[in-house]
């Protein structure tokens, strides 16, 4: 592991365009192991666009994303395997039960997770009583929990990239999620997230990254 000194994820002079508007320019961000990064900024400042660039769903207009010290494009499999992204959309199928949903998303991600682990994650996030209900009859918050249960079952990813993870969650679920995030950070994982809710997450190293400062 000669790259252990390199930061997990790093961006250099990142510029993002959405349509004809330039959202931000010259963005340098460094995320090390065990670090909590809160991406802040007004609506429309490009938080979601930034997160999508960081996980490789979108291409930046210019600039570079580096994964463990190397251009992320050249170590794509390593990059994708080391990262877990959850966007606004839950990736939850209305016709599947919570457990089937977790099975399907683990299979798509190329992971094999034991049933017991998945069931435990669902129980932890407060869905134990709704295991055999198709997701269509769940509430918005409960559906969000199904998606977030993946985080609780995850041990593979070094970096979590979460877009508004706390939306639609009740107080108890927020607490469970914050605890899971803190545990992930203690394991040496890193976390990049956006939120408009003040949530206290226990972390030794943290930074707040305000996109408004990079606006054009």
């Amino acid at each position, binding site marked *: 592991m000669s790259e252990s000194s390199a930061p997990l994820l790093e961006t250099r002079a990142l510029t993002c365009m959405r349509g004809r508007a330039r959202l931000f320019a010259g963005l340098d961000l460094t995320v090390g192991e065990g670090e909590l990064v809160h991406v802040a900024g007004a609506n429309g400042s490009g938080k979601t666009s930034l997160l999508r660039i960081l996980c490789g769903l979108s291409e930046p207009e210019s600039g570079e994303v580096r994964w463990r010290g190397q251009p992320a494009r050249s170590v794509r499999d390593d990059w994708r395997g080391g990262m877990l992204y959850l*966007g606004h959309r839950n990736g939850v*199928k209305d016709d599947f039960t919570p457990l089937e949903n977790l099975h399907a998303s683990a299979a798509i991600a*190329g992971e094999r997770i034991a049933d017991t682990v998945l069931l435990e994650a669902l129980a932890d996030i407060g869905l134990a009583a709704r295991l055999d209900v198709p997701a269509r009859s769940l509430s918005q918050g409960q559906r969000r929990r199904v998606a977030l249960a993946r985080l609780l079952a995850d041990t593979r990813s070094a970096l979590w990239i979460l877009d508004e993870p706390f939306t639609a969650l009740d107080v108890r679920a927020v607490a469970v999620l914050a605890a899971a995030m803190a545990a992930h950070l203690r394991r040496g994982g890193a976390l990049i997230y956006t939120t408009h809710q003040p949530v206290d997450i226990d972390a030794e190293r943290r930074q707040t990254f305000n996109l408004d400062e990079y606006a054009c």
Partner: protein
Amino acid sequence: MLSLFVSVVRRDLLLAWRRRSDVLTALGFFLLVTSLFPLGVGPEPEQLSHIAAGVMWVAALLATLLSVSRLFESDEADGTLEQMLLSVEPLPVIVLGKVCAYWLLTGLPLVVIAPLIGLQFNLSADETLIVCATLLVGTPSLSLLGAVGASLTLGLRGGGALIALLVLPLYVPVLIFGAGALDAWRAGLGIQSHLALLSAVLLVALAVCPLASATALRIAQD
């Protein structure tokens, strides 16, 4: 990789089973069109058996065109597609799995029901077998080519019309060889050449379409 393919196929089949009405549209369309033709054209047995292969092939083609635009729609809407793009697993394999499930749901039923339709068109047993064989080799190509169109038009308004424009030129050779096989057999030429050409199209489509579709999906999500 194989286990990924299998789990994607299984997932899509299970999803389809949970909402059966959606799946039956293609089959229903095929049945409707092919049943209306004898009523509209008139009951002369000779004329019917003459147009049978063409009608069944056009109906199969339109049935595919009608349903294939929805191939990636629900995955896109609920965010599953994002997760597919971010997977360490190769996206073309996931796409191939989805297309395979799609064909099992919309292509294979047409092949199975074709003998029944053949009766309406006064086809002999041999002739029915030929139509079934061409449909069996041809409809997978329709599904694969359609998948490329579906991923290119994903998220576009009026995608349904655009997909027809994009995909129809590619469907035409499949249609010609598929529907022409029966005529060739009647003329005593044998159907080997037609089947060989259909198989060639299928092999090329198998090799190219999942890759093209995966690339288009990445661009669509950018």
